């Protein structure tokens, strides 16, 4: 077939808009005052605690998402087929609302005299100071990324044949054993994809901590300040971005050792 030629425009596009920009990142990251140097990394090293904090947040929110999403996806996967579709639609619907507006909607209800405190007040509790706390940042991440965990989990669980579970029960396995020995191994690819899809945006997010947290920066906020604003420094910003990118690639690589599904195919 002579159809191969049709991909030429895209190959050019990839070269110009994907490969070349990444070369620029590497170039700026290692560009000192007099040519090649590691001085940007010396500066960037000061921000290691910020990176650590971001990774901890990302890990926590991934874990919470997994705990919330696993039962949800399982329950969905055992429903009638037409109802499954509706549930899925309802999970996807909030994702179509802009991320900033979702953050904003959280700040409205978490405010000191916001609705959540009003509801607590009905029971004679509070008011609690919920805004500008670490908990609020975590909540913001879970709120934003939960659907990314539910969808891949559901997509593998819906393929688990119900007869397998019946067979497991008939052979004398308790519900817990069935979960551990049948459902869990079969849903493993979904867990891996879900972790990747939550952890990466959570680790590199910005805005969430600025709006919901105590004003301290996460790695995404830090990168932003090096590229936009009064104190731009493309070199240090690129150095940090490169570290972030390499860490995420290693993360994906390690997780994929457990599972060979193609990440790209799972995203749809």
């Amino acid at each position, binding site marked *: *077939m*002579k*159809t191969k030629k*049709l*991909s*030429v*425009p*895209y*190959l050019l*596009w*990839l070269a110009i*808009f994907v*490969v070349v*920009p*990444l070369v*620029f*990142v590497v170039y*700026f990251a290692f560009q000192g005052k007099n040519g090649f140097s590691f001085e940007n990394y010396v500066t960037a090293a000061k921000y290691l605690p910020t990176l650590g904090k971001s990774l901890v947040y990302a890990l926590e929110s991934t874990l919470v998402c997994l705990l*919330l999403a696993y*039962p*949800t996806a399982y*329950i969905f996967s055992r429903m009638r087929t037409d109802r499954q*579709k509706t549930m899925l*639609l*309802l*999970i996807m*619907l909030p994702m*179509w609302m*802009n*991320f*900033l*507006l*979702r*953050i*904003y*909607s959280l700040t*409205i*209800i978490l*405010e000191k*005299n*916001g*609705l959540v405190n009003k509801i607590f007040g009905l029971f004679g509790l509070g008011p609690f100071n919920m805004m500008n706390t670490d908990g609020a940042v975590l909540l913001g991440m879970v*709120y934003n990324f*939960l*659907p990314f965990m539910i969808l891949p989990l559901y997509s593998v669980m819906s393929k688990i044949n119900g007869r397998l579970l019946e067979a497991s029960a008939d052979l004398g396995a308790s519900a817990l054993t069935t979960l551990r020995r049948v459902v869990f191994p079969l849903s493993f690819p979904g867990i891996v994809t879900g972790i990747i899809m939550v952890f*990466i945006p959570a680790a590199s997010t*910005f*805005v969430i901590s600025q*709006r919901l947290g105590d004003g301290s920066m996460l790695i995404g906020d830090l990168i*932003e300040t090096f*590229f*936009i604003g009064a104190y731009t420094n493309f070199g240090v910003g*690129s150095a940090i*971005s490169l570290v*972030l*990118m390499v860490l*995420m690639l290693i993360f*994906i690589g390690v997780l994929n050792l457990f599972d060979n599904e193609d*990440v*790209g195919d799972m995203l749809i």
Partner: protein
Amino acid sequence: MKKLFSALWVGLVFLFLYFPILVMVAFSFNSTTSKSVFTGFSLKWYAELFSDPKLMGALGNTLLVAVLSAIIATVIGTAAAIGIHSYPKRARNAVMNISNIPIINPEIVTGISLMLMFVMVSRWMGLPMGFWSVLLAHVTFNVPYVVLNVLPKLRQMNTHLYEAALDLGATPRRALLRVVLPEIMPGVASGFLMSLTYSMDDFVITRFTSGNFQTLPVLIYTMLKKPLPLSVNALSALLFLMVLSILIAINVISAKRYKKTQKELAK
């Protein structure tokens, strides 16, 4: 017991996902500026929204970029998928690995990498970042999704259809347009819709590549530094309604099509 627990759990998850959004929508109808006490029904925030030139301008920019980038991405991506499909396996894997970079990479890294290049280009050419750089960036992150949507349809297609068309005397171009394209149309359409929504929704990459050009998410971000006016609630409500109706429309159409094919199969 088990059923009750399931229903309760699912109910709580939906409450968590929808409560903030519904509160935001409800208070867009409030008659005062309060975001926690409902004082009466009014549409004044909607009136304010439509008379806000900044918000309306940004909305126009957002739609313009979304439609243009989705069209360009769909054309490039569909052609690319057809080409990549006929590659030998190793070449295909290599190209797909590069193609997936913008999907797998943290968005912020894609954003700053494009920004670095655009800043260099604008220095050489004296052309500040703006509409052009946003459009190029959006096409860049949209094409991979089109490719990923179209490739499975090509795999499902009978490979001999194209050859049969050629044997029957069709020119390659005609065979592609009249035989291959109709077969993969569902993938093309969903790739287009996905591009459209991703582009409308994108904030991170646009933030770094927009210069002074403002799309809606970028404008909302700059507004977030101060307490937002309730007209933003009104805007959110309208956007939510819009997406809801698009989703329902897609579902109704696909349900109708499903019934139709079922009927045809029954014959």
